[in-house]
Every structure is written in structure tokens, then in C-alpha cells.
């Protein structure tokens, strides 16, 4: 098992190299570059534009640019953002972006599981009953409504229907403005929760439907197995059969999705973060994409790729951990 994990970890290196080359090529295939908008500024001369092209190294051939980038990365220098003039990862993680990305990803994951697993169990144990259809419907509603639209509607309801402004409560962002430069306090913590719950609802409901259906399907499969019938014939209550025996096995496949869902949570909530005004790494990356800030795009791609690969390794590890039948060489 240890050997397998080490081998998987080492495989990441050539994978990341290939990802970086493909990503760099795709960036260069995009029309224009970071200076395209500057070219449309009547007050900038050709000479200044040329100086900037040389300063950013945009006049070098594609492979030369990639080689210089790779050489610097291998020395730990991921470059400087064209936009902010700060190092790439400082730009991506500036301030509290990484902290909030992790907080939102983790809390959303926990809350999604807290709600999705019981709903999935309920749905499986009440198969085809009206209540099963109702919970399934709401699960899919969360999945089918576009996140940005849901976020806007939620805020609209808070402002226009519930008039939260009259109660001194704000919408979007992390805090009401009166707390921006105030020290940490209980009131400030409560205000954080007030601003974060729409994020959890929007992102969480989008992720819940898949998990509900997975839990439901897995439990239905498990409940039809012979050992469950044996347990029932031995006189165990349905509650014990379901929760002590069936759920424990049915939840195994879902555990592996934990690792796979991590990268999605980190970078999948970009539009929601933009609409709800939350500082996240994904949002910084999105800005870099819009402006074709190449060093940040490449640095961000490496970061998210690494997250994905680590997520896959975690998924494999968890699967082996919960299911003793699975062993890797």
C-alpha cells in the first residue's frame, strides 16, 4: 500500500509537466494577449506597447517562453503577475483568499454530507413513496438551477421580500461594512455566518442532488443483498438492519467521492463567489483568465491540477481504508 502511494505521488510529476505544456499551448492559441486591451487605448504609443511586449517576454517564440517559464518553476520561481506585479501565488492567495477557499470548501462539504446522506437514506427506505419523490425533486432543483441565478434570486428575496436592510443586515460579501475594520467579536462572527449561509445553500444544493442519488442507489443495492435478508430473518429491527449493517456498506462508494469532490469545491464555486462577493482563489484565477495574465494562469493551473491529483490519491486511499477487500500493489 505504501509503495503504491509513493508510486502514485511520483506519477504526479510527469503528469503535471504534460498538463503545463498543454495548458501553455492553449493559452498561446487564444487570440490576443495581456496587452490587447492596451492596444485599444488611443493614448498609448506603439513604442510603449513594444516596450511592454519585451518586458513581459511576449515577443519570444512559444517554446522559448515555455522553457523560460519551466526553468524558473523548477527553481521555485513561478513568475510575477503582469497585472499586480506580485509573485503569482501571492496574487492568487493574496489576503485571506486561500483561507476562505478552504473554509467554504470544507464547510460546504460537511453540510452537504450532513443533509444529503440522511435524505438519501430516507429516500431509499421510502422508495417510490410520495415523500421519496418530494425530496428527490428538491435535490434536483438545487442541481438544475444555475448557481449565479439562484444566488441572485436569494439576495433579491432577502432585500425586496424580507427587507433585511431595515434590520441593519447586508447581503453579499463577507461582512456588513460596519464590521470591516472592527476587531473580532461575537457579533462579527454572527455576521460572518449571516453572509456565508447563502453560499452554503447555493453551492451545497448544487452538490447535494448527486450525493442523494448515489446514497439512495447504493443503499437500495445493499438492502437487496442476501446478508441483509439474513439479518432481518434473525429478528433484527429494520432500524438496526438499515443503519448498523446496510448503511455502513452502502456508504463505501460515497467515501471515495470525497477526494474527487475536493477540487470541484475549490474551483467550482467561481461564479457563486463572484455573485456573492466572496474572496476565493477561483475568483482570482477567473480574473487572470479574463485579462490573460499568463503567469497567474499557469500558476493557477498547476495548483488546481495538483489539487485534482491529490484528490484522486485521497479517493484511492479512502477506498482501501474503508473496504478491506481492496488492496493495491
Amino acid at each position, binding site marked *: 500500500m505504501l509503495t503504491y502511494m509513493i508510486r502514485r505521488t511520483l506519477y504526479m510529476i510527469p503528469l503535471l509537466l504534460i498538463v503545463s505544456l498543454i495548458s501553455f499551448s492553449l493559452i498561446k492559441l487564444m487570440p490576443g494577449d495581456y496587452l490587447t486591451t492596451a492596444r485599444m487605448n488611443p493614448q498609448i*504609443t506603439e513604442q510603449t506597447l513594444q516596450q511592454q511586449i519585451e518586458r513581459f517576454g511576449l515577443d519570444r517564440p512559444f517554446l522559448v517562453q515555455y522553457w523560460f517559464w519551466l526553468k524558473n518553476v523548477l527553481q521555485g520561481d513561478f513568475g510575477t503577475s503582469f497585472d499586480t506585479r506580485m509573485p503569482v501565488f501571492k496574487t492568487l492567495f493574496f489576503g485571506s483568499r486561500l483561507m476562505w477557499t478552504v473554509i467554504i470548501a470544507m464547510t460546504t462539504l460537511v453540510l452537504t454530507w450532513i443533509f444529503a446522506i440522511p435524505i438519501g437514506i430516507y429516500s431509499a427506505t421510502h422508495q417510490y413513496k410520495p415523500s421519496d419523490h418530494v425530496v428527490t425533486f428538491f435535490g434536483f432543483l438545487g442541481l438544475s438551477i444555475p448557481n449565479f441565478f439562484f444566488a441572485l434570486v436569494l439576495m433579491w428575496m432577502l432585500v425586496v421580500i424580507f427587507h433585511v436592510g431595515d434590520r441593519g443586515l447586508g447581503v453579499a460579501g463577507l461582512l456588513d461594512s460596519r464590521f470591516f475594520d472592527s476587531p473580532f467579536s461575537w457579533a462579527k462572527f454572527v455576521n460572518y455566518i449571516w453572509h456565508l449561509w447563502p453560499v452554503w445553500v447555493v453551492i451545497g444544493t448544487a452538490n447535494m442532488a448527486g450525493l442523494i442519488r448515489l446514497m439512495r442507489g447504493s443503499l437500495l443495492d445493499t438492502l437487496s443483498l442476501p446478508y441483509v435478508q439474513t439479518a432481518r430473518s434473525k429478528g433484527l429491527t429494520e432500524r438496526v438492519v438499515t443503519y448498523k449493517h446496510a448503511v455502513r456498506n452502502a456508504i463505501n462508494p460515497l467515501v471515495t467521492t470525497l477526494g474527487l469532490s475536493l477540487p470541484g469545491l475549490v474551483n467550482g464555486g467561481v461564479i457563486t463567489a463572484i455573485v456573492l462577493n466572496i474572496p476565493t482563489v477561483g475568483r482570482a484565477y477567473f480574473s487572470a483568465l479574463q485579462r490573460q495574465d499568463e503567469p497567474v494562469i499557469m500558476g493557477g493551473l498547476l495548483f488546481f491540477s495538483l489539487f485534482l491529483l491529490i484528490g484522486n490519491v485521497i479517493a484511492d486511499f479512502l477506498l482501501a481504508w474503508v473496504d478491506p477487500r481492496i488492496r493495491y500493489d
Partner: protein
Amino acid sequence: MKKALILAGLVFAFSLAALAQGYDAMPADALVFPIGVAGTVYEDMDLGVRGGTLNVSNIEDPRGWNNHTAHETSTTWFTYRMHRGLVNLDHISGAVVVDFAKAYEISDDGLVITFHLREGIKWSDGTPITADDVLFSYNDVVLNEDVDCNSRDGQILPDGTFPLLEKVDDYTVTFTLSTIYRPILNALSFNLMPKHKLAEYVHKLNPDVPAGTFNETWTLDTPLTELVGNGPYIVTDYQVNVSVTMERNPYYYGYDPAGTQLPYYDKVQTTIVANQDVSMLKFRNGEIDVYGLRPEDIPILLPEADAKDYSVMITDLARYGTTWIMINQDIGIPDGTDAEKRELYRNVEFREALAHLLDKDTMVQNVLNGLGTAQWGPVSVPSPFYAGRDVYGGPITENNAVWFEYDPTLAASKLDALGVVDADGDGWRDLPSGAPLTMEMNTNDNTIRIAYCLIMQDDFRAVGLNCNFQVVDFNTLVGQLFGSTGDIIMLGLTGGDEPNSGKNVYSSCGSLHAYRYSACEEPDEVDLRIDELLDLGANTFDLDAAFGYYTEYQQLLAHQLGYVYLCQPTFQYSYYNKVGNAFMASPTSTPAGNNGLLTELCFDKTLL
């Protein structure tokens, strides 16, 4: 001993307090804004009181705190409030007015501009501001090729040289020009930077630092206590993607006629809101005090205005910039094709026919919800040189403003006269030779531009012109513009008060003269006259004379139809009535974007 320590501590505390309080009295050389003074553009404004916090929003985060290396309004909105220059553009009229300089003179030959600086004025950390700071800002930052400076190009004189800045004494400097060049006054509004804080980062002053170090100075990760400015505010707090807090500069030299030091508001709290729908919701929720609204917001905001005590200001003043279609007069040159089409596009009669097919009233009503004006020329409407304003030498009458009325019948007859008729009976007009004429019209993914193009496509097709509209990526569109490919491109350009800032666009060899790059090699009479007028307008400090030259310039370009202008949205905004003087916001005070609010002249009415 204990008593001595306590006394020393008290003295120290009082000293700090004294430093933080600013000037002991209004400096003799203070800049007095004529608030409420009859006969000035500020006469309708009210005197205010100090205190309170103004809450505004911005759509993007700043990308640094260094004004000279900033290239975007999301940054300059803040840096403009931290730093000011020798001169400024008046918030209302757009005319060049003194700012940190208290006066300036121009020599009789027009080649030497002498600036007299305000004495006794300090940076926000209490250090006196002198001519050394001006020399540092100009010679060592603006003109320094190591610095990725956004204002250097504006300093270039027609012969390619730069003005020579020299110090006469601690409070007097001169700029010597090689040729008379009036636009240099606008360019000399570059922001002053503190030499005592920043000289160490300039390689030519401190060889120990690598060249280009200044470009990475005052980035977002700089401790905010390092920021020093001479503007009304200083940034004191920044939470990424959340907020920027600015507090008053205790040494700002602006005052009102009653002797009250500006700004009135103690703080400006800017919430970063990336989505404009969310900005509007926050405004309705009372979280932000001012909102630069869109036409579609008006029917939502108007009904609640009285109940929530805010005002919705709808003006008829167009925003800066131009929106146009460009009929490519160099089509086919890159690949040696389309000679007949090129000849047709170069015929001004054909372009006039297309101009008569532009239904600008429908565009304004349907696309801008009635909140826009038609454009006819290259100079932004808020500019004092716009043929029609009365700041310099004007107004000219409506008859002098050239326009092409929407007249499909006239357009069709012009096309017929050119031989652009349906030769093969397929319902579409053809080239004079009988070959098919198909026009591709492109724009980028912008809802307003797409709407304009759809209207134009319908009108072109209605008279038999086979026009196909397609949305393309912005970068691809810019590539078409510079590569002289494509038939018709719909885009826009930013604008300003100084017509000469459009030289790159309208002079025959300009890098953005995209409608006919070949004019550089083969200029016609109109091209030559436009080049001449740009120089004449720049080579005089007589503003009335300059206005005359630019009037002819605008008429020629309106006739030439190189860029055929469409419509520009008008400026509107909303504000809570507790914000005093907010009603005076205008697009003219948007050199740094965002709402056009004169932040330093607004005040909290609830404190009265």
C-alpha cells in the same frame, strides 16, 4: 523619576496628536473650492460639515497603489484620491485648473510654463512638499524608461522630445517646450509622488536596486502605513475582494470658503462588488450611498425613491468615449483581394449611404431605454472642445453639427447612383461589376453592441444589402481591426477632454487609424487637413482659437465617415439624499471612474 516619565509620555502623546491633526490653521496657499460662490460652476453646492462615512462600491479590486504604473480605473479610483498633480481637470467643466500648483504662467513665446507651488503644504506623513518632489515625480518616474508609466506618452511633444523640467527654487519649477503644445497642460496633471518614500526604489537614484524595481513598489502587499499622498484621502485598510477603506488626509490642502478643511467625509468605504445586479441590491438595501445605475435599473429604483429617501438623477449628458462602426477601407490589401469592394468602401458616397441607414433614435430608445444621445463626431460630448459646449469659445449652433439623418430612401437612391443594385435578381445588391456584395459585420460579446448590430443588420438588409452579423471574441475582433480584415467592425474607444489625445486614431499615420492604415502612405486632402488641424489646435494656448480648429476637425471627421459614430449612453446615477452635494456628480469627474462623484466635496447631511 516616575513623574518625569509620565510627563515625557504625555509630551510624546501630545506631539503625536499634533502630527495627526494636520495644519494648525488654514494654510495661506490652500486650494479653496468656491462652494456656493455665485458665478462659479460650484454655486449650487452647499457648505458641509466634517464627519461620517461615505459608502460606495467598485466593480473590481485595485491592482496596486502605485498611480504611475496603474493601467486600470479600478486602481486609479483610489490612487487618484491619494495623489494629485500640479493641475487637474475641473470636476464640472473639464477645463484645466490649478491643483497643487497655485498658479502658472506661459511665456510670450509659449515655450516656457512656470508653475508656482503652494507653500507650507505637506504630505500625509507631515513631510513638506517641495519642487524636489515635482522633479522626482517627473524626471525620475514619468520620464524614466525603467518605469512602466502610464502617463509618459502624454508628455511627448510633436517632435518626439519631452518638456524639460527645471527647478527655480523650492516652490517654483519651469517646463520648457521645444514647440508650443497646448495639450501638455492636460498631461502635466500627472500625480506627484513623495521622493522621500520612493526614491530608494528608482534604479537611477539608487543603483543598489535592479532596474524596474519601481514597477513592483506600492503593490497590494505593501503595508498601508507606507502609503503617503497629497490627495484628500489615504488608503488605510484593504480586504481583498471585500473592501477598501480610505480615511482623510490630515494635510490635504483643499478647503471650502468657510475655512473648513476638506474632505468633509472622514472615511470613504468602498465595497468591492463584482456583479452590478448585486450593487443595485446593495443600494436598495441601504448598504451603499451612491450607485451608478444602468437604464434597466431606473424603473426598479424610481418607485422606491421617495419611501427610501434617495434620488435618481437622469441627465442628458453623454458619457466619455465613442461607439462606432468602421467600414474597412483597406479590405483585401493584406491578401491582395477584394479590389472592387475596397474601391466601393473608399467611396465616401457609399459610406454616406450606410450612415443614412443608421437609425440612432431606435438605438437610443430600444437599446439604451431612451437614455442616450446620438454621436456625430470624434470628441466626447463632455469635453470642453466638443462642438456644442460653451466652455471654450462655443457654442456652435445646431446647424454646424453635421449629421446624417436616418433616411433609407435616400440611402437606397445613393446606392443606386453608385451602381450598387441587384444585378442578378436574387434580392441582394451587388457590386457595380455585378459580382455579389456580402458584408460581414462583427462585434464582441457586449449586449449593447450586439443590439446595435442587430438593428443595423435589419436596416441594411431592408434596402437590399446582404449584411451578416456575427459575435466574435474581443481579442479576435481587435486582431481584425489591426489586421485590416473584415468588412464592418463595431467597437468603441475611450475618450477624454483633450481632442489631441485622439491623435493615434485620427492622424493619417496613427496606430489606431484602423479604417485606412494605407492613408499613412497615400493621404488624401481630408487626411492632410485633419493632420494639420490636430497640430494647429495643439500649437496654441489661445483656447478660442483651439476651439475653432477642433470644430473644423470634428466637422471633417463627421463628413469623412472613417469611423461612423452611433450612440453613447447618458450619465445617470442615484444617491441617498443624506449625501450632500451628490447631485453635482458628472461624467467629467470620472478620470478615475465610478459614479462621477466629487468625493471630497460631499458631506453627511445628517450631521448638520
